[in-house]
């Protein structure tokens, strides 16, 4: 592991450059190319870059048309606007057509910070996960994003990549395995499993270290693919540790926690606790302040772990 800090949106921009040799790749942006780092692709492949203005609905429809004509479009804007602004177009024009469109949505989650609630997409995982044929990926750092982008381009069908604005610590390196649909164990443990995605992977590792100091052995799983969810892995964890805490920078309804719970409840019920946004909107503030105020920190995971262990004992 390196301590280098880079944003996942940077990983998106850099990865598009690398896979851009493939003539089928086209990139669309809705007046946010610098923010989504697609300006890098624009500079290198100007002919295959399309500036779509502040018109997201048209952009998604256009991308569907391009995909149905053989291209691999990467639709790029803020997660607040894709999917939220364009759900019907994604559902019908993209998913129902099984159009090969990839969505790179940056600035997801509370850590957008000062722009406030309108810009803090906290329901996008739930929304995208509900759509037939959609693959949903939440990378935890720069390197993982690069792998996710390359693999998203290689598979057929719609893919949603949920990306962040801020620099995040490297949790993986070039050698860390990454396969869409396969969750990875980042730390072994036997008392409980913490399953996290995105920025919460770092918080989960921190919480696990703190639990270790309290003689509690927590396993940490990076569940970067929310859909299709890694059922085998989750059941293996449930059976071995018998207690699960999920952690995500997202509403508690319909996201990672729900996806894990669906698997657990149907197959091998164990106590679970959810670290997530508690059905409210965010607000302006510094990212760290907001994570604290809305209970999305390693401390909150720590408390949830203790809670879930209490329930396990009973």
């Amino acid at each position, binding site marked *: 592991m390196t301590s280098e800090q880079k944003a996942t949106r940077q990983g998106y921009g850099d990865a598009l450059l690398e896979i851009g040799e493939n003539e089928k790749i086209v990139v669309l942006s809705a*007046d*946010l*190319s*610098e*923010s989504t780092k697609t300006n890098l692709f624009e500079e290198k492949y100007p002919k295959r870059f399309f*500036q*779509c*203005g*502040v*018109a*997201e*609905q*048209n952009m998604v429809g256009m991308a569907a048309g391009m995909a149905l004509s053989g291209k691999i479009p990467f639709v790029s804007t803020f997660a*607040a*606007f894709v999917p*939220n*602004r364009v759900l019907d177009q994604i559902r019908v024009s993209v998913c129902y057509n099984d159009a090969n469109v990839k969505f790179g949505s940056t600035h997801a989650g509370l850590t957008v*910070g*000062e*722009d*406030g*609630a*309108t*810009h803090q997409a906290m329901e996008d995982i739930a929304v995208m996960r509900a759509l037939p044929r959609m693959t949903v990926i939440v990378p935890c750092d720069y390197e993982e994003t690069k792998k996710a982008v390359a693999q998203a381009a290689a598979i057929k069908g719609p893919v949603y990549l949920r990306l962040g604005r801020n620099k995040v610590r490297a949790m993986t390196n070039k050698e860390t395995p990454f396969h869409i649909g396969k969750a990875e164990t980042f730390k072994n443990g036997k008392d409980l499993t913490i399953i996290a995605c995105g920025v919460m992977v770092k918080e989960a590792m921190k919480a696990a270290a703190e639990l270790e100091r309290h003689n509690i052995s927590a396993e940490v799983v990076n569940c970067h693919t929310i859909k299709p969810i890694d059922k085998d892995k989750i059941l293996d964890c449930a059976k071995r540790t018998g207690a699960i805490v999920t952690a995500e920078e997202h509403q508690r309804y319909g996201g990672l926690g729900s996806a894990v719970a669906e698997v657990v409840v149907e197959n091998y019920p164990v106590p679970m606790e959810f670290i997530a946004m508690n059905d409210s909107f965010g*607000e*302006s*503030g*510094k990212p760290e*302040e*907001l994570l604290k*105020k809305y209970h999305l920190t390693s401390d909150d995971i720590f408390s949830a772990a203790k809670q879930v262990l209490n329930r396990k004992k009973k």
Partner: protein
Amino acid sequence: MEEVGHLKYRANAIRQDIIKMISNAGSGHPAGALGMADVFAVLYFHVLNHDPKNPSWEERDRLILSNGHICAARYSAMAHSGYFPIKELKTFRKIDSRLQGHPSYEDLPGVESSSGSLGQGLSIAVGMALTAKLDNANHKVYCILSDGELDEGSVWESINAANKWNLDNLIVILDRNNIQISGDTEKVWPLNPLRKKFEAFNWEVLDVDGNDVMKLVGVFDRVNHLKGKPIIVIANTVPGKGVSFMENKAEWHGKPPAKDQALYALKELSVKLRKIEDDF
């Protein structure tokens, strides 16, 4: 209603606040806000029929700010009108503040609707104007839109809706500053010919220099006598107006000035203020 000399003074104060607020927050959107300072001064201190001490007064005129990112200008105008203490402007974009990075209806009385996701405000304004007609109410509904926002298809749905119901109690003020994030609007997403487009949708179209307080007062006085159609005032503004290094530069769309730049900007604005006072 304040007189013209005073309105210039107000606009200058709003500009100084915008610089201070965005610099202090370390983020925000100066270009559009500075360009619209004159419009906000004229609206809040001359045009709007409102009561800052009673923001939910039924008969008030409504002002929808659809391009929520320029809210620093609105917050300043509201503070100077008496909606809340001027010192609260310091909390802009900070945690637990009522002055959210994009306006929050729930948090701040006087903000008629939350905004920040572009292209939604005009639909809301249409709904309010239609309700006013339904209820035989006499207040007007003003809606500020940005030119970048006109990229959004839904805005054109509301432009059509306003025509269908002949909403002559609806007045759009368009911030025609010719920039959006990626640069010149006509390169990013061509909008011209704007006047003809609105005329084709059967709107009453007025053009004005949006940085000339006297002309703005004139145009809003004229608007009061128009009947039968929804009205759009195309306010031709200079983005970053009043701060030389920001004027007409799209790069200042959403970037805070550094400390020294903010001080320089404030100095320029106070020189202009002295000139306004001399002329007064």
